[in-house]
């Protein structure tokens, strides 16, 4: 009797573990195809810039989009926080569609690839999400804010940022946007930042754009955060965008907050870092039912209620913040920044076409700009 009972209990546990284990594994190893676009001249991996990254979870693809005419170099980072999908989707649109006339754009779709292979305990994130397309749909890993503990474990008792020695929350040692400028003998995430700094130096990057999203309860939202040396670009871009397309703010990277891309890349390299934030109600602590629909449609009654109480830093109504709007904001902001930069630096201009703007993405949907890998030249397909 006892043995039978025990066997049944253990068997039930094993079934639960098996189902969950299969699901974790499936989403961790899900392959996300990128169909290299017309201007992709070559595809490197991050490990080529810093050998210890080679073969690790963070040995991400690096797409080089090159124009015929020489000019400046812009690095676009998607997936610093994979749980902010507008950032990654924007890099897909870039890598698959952008046509470079002058200069170069370097794109990473999975800047912290490790973080894209895991979801947060007690966050109830969906394992994946699917963007509808004419040819069906493309599925992406949901991902998290922090690197996968399977790639970096344990956390310290307190995270001390290199080199400032600022004390940060222990789990933020796995947060790529708290690890800049990174260190060569640090954790995987710190090494990833270090490798990215090597890339920025070696490729003489002029501007780094780090794509993010934020909860509406977070004061830094719908904005361009700029290092002091990028303030004029950010100000000009935000003014033009607010005038012509949508409201977007601009703020200066605070000197006292360490480890962030918009601070450390500016301090440690010649590049100008800019960070874009779009609103993602899915991340709000007051959100209701947590699923892929909320992630992509951005509609939530509870977040709306929080807004009515004046607890939010961005407006929200029943229409929510759909993914098309959020990706549209990132694409238009990027286009605007390139145009402001190129106008002032003719010899270092980066002239790009083929990337849709805000209105067009809202009208056609993000999926309209994703290419069907089944109908593409297999030699042009890369997996994230």
């Amino acid at each position: 009797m006892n043995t039978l009972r025990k066997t049944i209990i253990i068997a039930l546990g094993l079934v639960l573990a098996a189902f969950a284990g299969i699901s974790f594994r499936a989403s961790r190893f899900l392959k996300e195809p990128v169909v290299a676009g017309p201007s992709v001249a070559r595809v490197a991996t991050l490990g080529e810039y810093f050998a210890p990254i080679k073969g690790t979870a963070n040995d991400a693809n690096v797409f080089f989009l090159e124009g015929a005419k020489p000019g400046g170099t812009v690095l676009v980072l998607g997936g610093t926080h994979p749980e902010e999908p507008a950032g990654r989707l924007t890099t897909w649109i870039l890598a698959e569609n952008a046509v470079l006339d002058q200069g170069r754009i370097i794109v990473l779709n999975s800047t912290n690839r490790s973080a894209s292979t895991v979801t947060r305990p007690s966050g109830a994130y969906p394992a994946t999400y699917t963007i509808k397309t004419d040819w069906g749909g493309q599925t992406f890993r949901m991902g998290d804010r922090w690197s996968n503990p399977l790639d970096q474990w344990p956390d310290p008792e307190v995270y001390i940022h290199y080199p400032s020695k600022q004390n940060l929350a222990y789990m933020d040692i796995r947060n790529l946007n708290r690890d800049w400028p990174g260190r060569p003998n640090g954790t995987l995430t710190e090494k990833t930042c270090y490798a990215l700094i090597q890339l920025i130096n070696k490729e003489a990057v002029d501007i780094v754009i780090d794509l993010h999203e934020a909860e509406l309860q977070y004061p830094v939202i719908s904005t361009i955060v700029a290092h002091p040396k990028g303030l004029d670009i950010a100000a000009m871009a935000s003014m033009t965008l607010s005038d012509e397309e949508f409201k977007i703010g601009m703020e200066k990277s605070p000197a006292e907050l360490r480890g962030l891309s918009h601070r450390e890349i500016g301090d440690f390299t010649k590049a100008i870092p800019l960070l874009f934030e779009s609103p993602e109600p899915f991340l709000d602590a007051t959100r209701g039912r947590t699923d892929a629909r909320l992630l992509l449609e951005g509609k939530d009654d509870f977040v709306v209620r929080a807004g009515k109480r004046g607890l939010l830093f961005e407006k929200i109504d029943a229409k929510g913040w759909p993914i098309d709007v959020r990706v549209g904001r990132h694409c238009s902001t990027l286009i605007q920044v390139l145009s402001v930069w190129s106008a002032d630096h003719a010899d270092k201009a980066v002239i790009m076409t083929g990337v849709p703007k805000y209105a067009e993405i809202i009208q056609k949907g993000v999926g309209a700009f994703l290419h069907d890998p089944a109908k593409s030249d297999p030699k042009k397909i890369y997996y994230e």
Partner: protein
Amino acid sequence: MIITWLYYLLVAYVVVLMVWNLIRSRKWQEEVLYVVVLLPFVLRLLRLK
């Protein structure tokens, strides 16, 4: 690297202790609880999560 291995070792040790207690347990509630508590330890050990 070595430290990470020590953590897997630690988890393995805890799993052994828990399974041992589970096998010797005579109360069904305790058995269920051991199985639930074992879930994260076992899946971490198998590097599934």
